[in-house]
């Protein structure tokens, strides 16, 4: 293995483990068969994520970024290539990777509290303890007082807060977030970004956050992967040097604007001379 070679001689086993990236994708490729045609959703996606990093993956729709996240989550399998978490290959979903979707995907027949408690019960928690833990988690995401509401009674932002609480309840090592704020209105999205930053700073989880919103990717991320479409692949990998802790003030940081412009130029180049929409329209089966 490369990692063992890279470890300096005489280093203890412990150091070797902490040096190793938490997540490693190696040559991940994914193809679909649609209408007798083979569509390449991902081509040779390789990157490493160190423990505790907030990684944003930025790309247009159809660049395979969701597929990439599903493969990391173990919900879909790569056509070739591999995903390793702490050195072990990923083959199935697991509680070590907490997944969040664009829709809150709460169970509509359960109250908010019961939704958050459900994964704990699956894990064999006592009902009483699961309930208490669910309340704590809901307090963390600012949903105290809504324990007994049903998802249909909540706003979109509140539902995503509840989904975040449920995912945090898995006690994951990595949060996989698939455009979780994409369906929210602009103001709610900004507030949720600040809230997520706060929660992440307190937890020091590793996060992979998918978005097509440049400012969101830069504001949240320690690092941004820029992806191109057809086939989906990584076209840039940029460290974001904005001060931590970040908050509302970060959004007025001139460096944020610089990053925004830099990424826009990348995306524009990638899209080529024709309007970016026409490429999609030509190849997307509808």
């Amino acid at each position, binding site marked *: 293995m490369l990692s063992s070679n890279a470890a300096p001689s005489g280093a203890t086993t412990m150091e070797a483990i902490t040096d190793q990236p938490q997540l490693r994708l190696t040559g991940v490729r994914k193809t679909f068969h649609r209408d007798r045609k083979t569509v390449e959703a991902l081509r040779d996606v390789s990157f490493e994520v160190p423990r505790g990093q907030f990684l944003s993956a930025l790309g247009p729709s159809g660049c395979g970024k969701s597929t990439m996240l599903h493969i990391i*989550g173990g*919900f879909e399998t790569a056509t070739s290539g591999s995903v390793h978490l702490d050195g072990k290959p990923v083959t*199935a*979903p*697991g*509680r070590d*990777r*907490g*997944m969040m*979707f664009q*829709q809150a*995907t709460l*169970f*509509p*027949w*359960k*109250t908010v509290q019961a939704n958050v408690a*459900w*994964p704990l019960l*699956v*894990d064999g928690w006592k009902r009483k303890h699961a309930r208490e833990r669910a309340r704590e988690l809901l307090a963390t995401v600012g949903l105290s*007082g*809504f324990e007994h*509401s*049903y*998802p*249909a*009674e909540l706003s979109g932002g509140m539902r995503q807060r509840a989904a975040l609480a*449920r*995912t945090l309840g*898995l006690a994951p090592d990595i949060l996989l977030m698939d455009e979780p704020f994409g369906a929210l209105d602009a103001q709610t999205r900004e507030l949720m970004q600040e809230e997520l930053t706060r929660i992440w700073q307190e937890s020091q989880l590793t996060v992979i956050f998918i978005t097509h919103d440049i400012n969101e990717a830069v504001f949240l991320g320690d690092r941004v992967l820029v992806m191109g479409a057809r086939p989906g692949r990584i076209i840039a990998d940029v460290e974001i040097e904005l001060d931590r802790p970040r908050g509302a003030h970060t959004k007025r940081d001139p460096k944020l604007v610089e990053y925004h412009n830099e990424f826009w130029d990348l995306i524009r180049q990638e899209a080529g001379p024709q309007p970016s929409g026409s490429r999609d329209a030509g190849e997307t089966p509808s």
Partner: protein
Amino acid sequence: MTATLTPESRVGRREWAEWMLDRRWPVATAVVLVLLAAWQTYGVIAGLPEYILTPFEIAGSVTELLASGRLVELSSASLGRLTAGFLLGTTSGVLIGLLSGVSRWFGDIVDGAVGFTYPIPKITLLPILAIWLGFTDSTRILVIAIAVFFPAYINANAATRGVDQELVWVAKNAGAGTLRTVLQVVLPAALPRTVAGIRQSLALSFIFMFATEAIGSSTGADAGLGGEMFAARANGEYDVLWAALATVAVLGGTIDAGFRWLVGRLMRGQELEVTGRG
């Protein structure tokens, strides 16, 4: 009023607003009353043919039949058949539908058989089954059961197949096994559409109750409302005919309303998917 937005006041206010919007029933009731009044007035002033009774005459006839015990006798005979056929048909329809939605293998086998039999008008089974079982309650119950099987099956099956993939992923992410995922996620998620199918079956069971009683029925206590209506028509007893019709309408409306009330209680948080009014 204070401007604080506690969860309680928020939900309370929303429910109040919904309650206000939902008060359409006084208007709906008024429309029905106006129509009945017009019918009654026209009947009194202009006169109606002998075979059409006014609302008051129908009410009188219902009261008379109720007092004699005949209406209860007919209704219980009808409702007995309806209940047996409905339960038999919907239970098997829902169970097979859910199962074939969960298991692709089972589903593909059953779907073929259902697709083949679905277009057959179910009432045509009545004479065929009557050859075998005679014009008995067994025949009637079986025809009702077969007829109501289809909406129950089709909706339960589609509901299970249509469950959001991401809900299943949430369960897998939590480490839930297949059985737990099916019982605690797929089936509850499939419930609204399944229940909508059961409601269609319920409506259909009334139609088939009437249709099966209309043919080869006795005129005794077990004639049922359908049998009695046909006998009354033949004998020119239009008051009995109308009283039975009114009873079918009231029973159907009441049972459907009761069903919707029960579903509303049992399925908080989930909307009932219904075509038409829900």
